[in-house]
């Protein structure tokens, strides 16, 4: 794929994310997205043949984005405790700077499995993100910092907690700004997972 075509695809993904966040996934149509980008509907279909295909590409796009951010942290020569804090901080930072991304992940990807069942089996479409979380856990155990346990019991504790906080933020329930919770949440997660 040419760089130009890839750039256009990314533009469509970005515009779709904003529309899905503001209007909702089912209320947003391909013509709405085309209109926001000043493209013809026919041309839109040159990039994505259907809204379901677009939906899958978006979750992969977000997974790669988050995965790249976590990879940078995993490759730093710092303790597991510091990594824990940095992962929490980057997740909240993205939730604040790109709320539509986390919103998509929580409200569309996790809530509309029928859209994603063909082509996003298991965790294929979020592989980059999950792989980095796995590496964080594995290296934490190897370093003697984290307790060895089933991957999902640790994954659920970590991501469920962060997702829950961002959800509460989205519902305007949290009394304090999200980043003021970073220290306590990092402490709680590390304490819960450590040896």
């Amino acid at each position, binding site marked *: 794929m040419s760089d130009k075509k890839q750039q256009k695809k990314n533009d469509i993904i970005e515009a779709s994310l904003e529309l899905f966040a503001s209007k909702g996934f089912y209320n947003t149509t391909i013509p709405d997205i085309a209109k926001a980008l000043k493209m013809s509907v026919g041309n839109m279909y040159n990039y994505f043949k259907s809204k379901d295909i677009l939906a899958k590409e978006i979750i992969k796009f977000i997974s790669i984005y988050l995965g790249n951010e976590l990879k940078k942290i995993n490759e730093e020569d710092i303790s597991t405790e510091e990594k824990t804090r940095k992962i929490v901080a980057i997740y909240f930072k993205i939730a604040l700077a790109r709320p539509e991304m986390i919103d998509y992940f929580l409200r569309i990807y996790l809530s509309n499995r029928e859209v994603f069942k063909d082509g996003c089996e298991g965790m*294929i479409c979020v592989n980059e993100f999950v792989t980095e979380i*796995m590496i964080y*856990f594995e290296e934490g155990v190897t370093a003697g910092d*984290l307790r060895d346990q089933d*991957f999902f019991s*640790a994954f659920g504790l970590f991501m469920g907690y962060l997702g829950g906080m961002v959800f509460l933020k989205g519902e305007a329930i949290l009394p304090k700004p999200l980043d003021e919770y970073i220290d306590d949440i990092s402490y709680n997660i590390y304490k819960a997972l450590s040896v």
Partner: protein
Amino acid sequence: MQQKVKVLWITGLACNGNTHSFLNYPNLGQFLDNFEFIYHPIIESKYSLEEIVSNTIPCDVLLIEGSISAEIEKADKKLIDIISNYAKVVNKIITVGTCSTFGGIFRDSEYEDITGLHFNETLEVERFRKIKDKTISISGCPIHPELLINTLYSIKNKIELKLDEYLRPKEYFAYTIHNGCTRNEYFEYKVDNHQFGKKEGCMFYDHGCQAPFTHGSCNKILWNEVNSKTRAGQPCMGCTEPDFPKSNLFKTKKNMGIPANLPLGVAKRTYLTLAGVTKAFTINRLEKDIFDD
């Protein structure tokens, strides 16, 4: 008639498993038409152990089985002196098995300085450095008889063998045991075996199989010409490697669900990406018994 190659088989601290494995070679008669043991602890030979240790009998190849220590004596002579003496006269030396190559299981014995001839696990041993150029290692617990005998024929025929960092012939040790395993399909799709001895399933994910990161030819040159551990339904125990034996051999060591030892040369990120994809699918054919629908 062509002169036979003269071979001396000396045993250090050993269980004699390599000798037993050697005796399973199907064409032993033919082998003995070409090679002659001046001494072997079990096969009838021309000289006694006493005559061997108190003289320097001419011979071409020295075979050493078992771990080595300065404390070990054979017929009242120090093993290390016997090795030094014969190392001077032979053309080649072969360490037969993992004990004489890396120290093996007897590293846990009461002898203080147990090692292989040139290696203590992965560390190089200084004592016999001068004879390193003459040595070929055939590791394994026990050795595969064909590997030893083919190596002896290579020496007889003056074929130069390329060796790896532990002096093992690349011809046999550049591969992993995984290469040629009949369970590779199950490995690819992450279907583990849950009953030992069954034909179905890969044993890497849960059952401790070390084949993907162990060097050797067990699934290319079959044992007794018919089978291998992994084909028969038992995990590879990594017996050709410097750190053999590890503990807990029937359970895959994992950190948070990720195998602690990954297939040789595969980066963690690469492995996890591939594993994530294959784990998302269920291949019904591989979930069922082969013969029972």
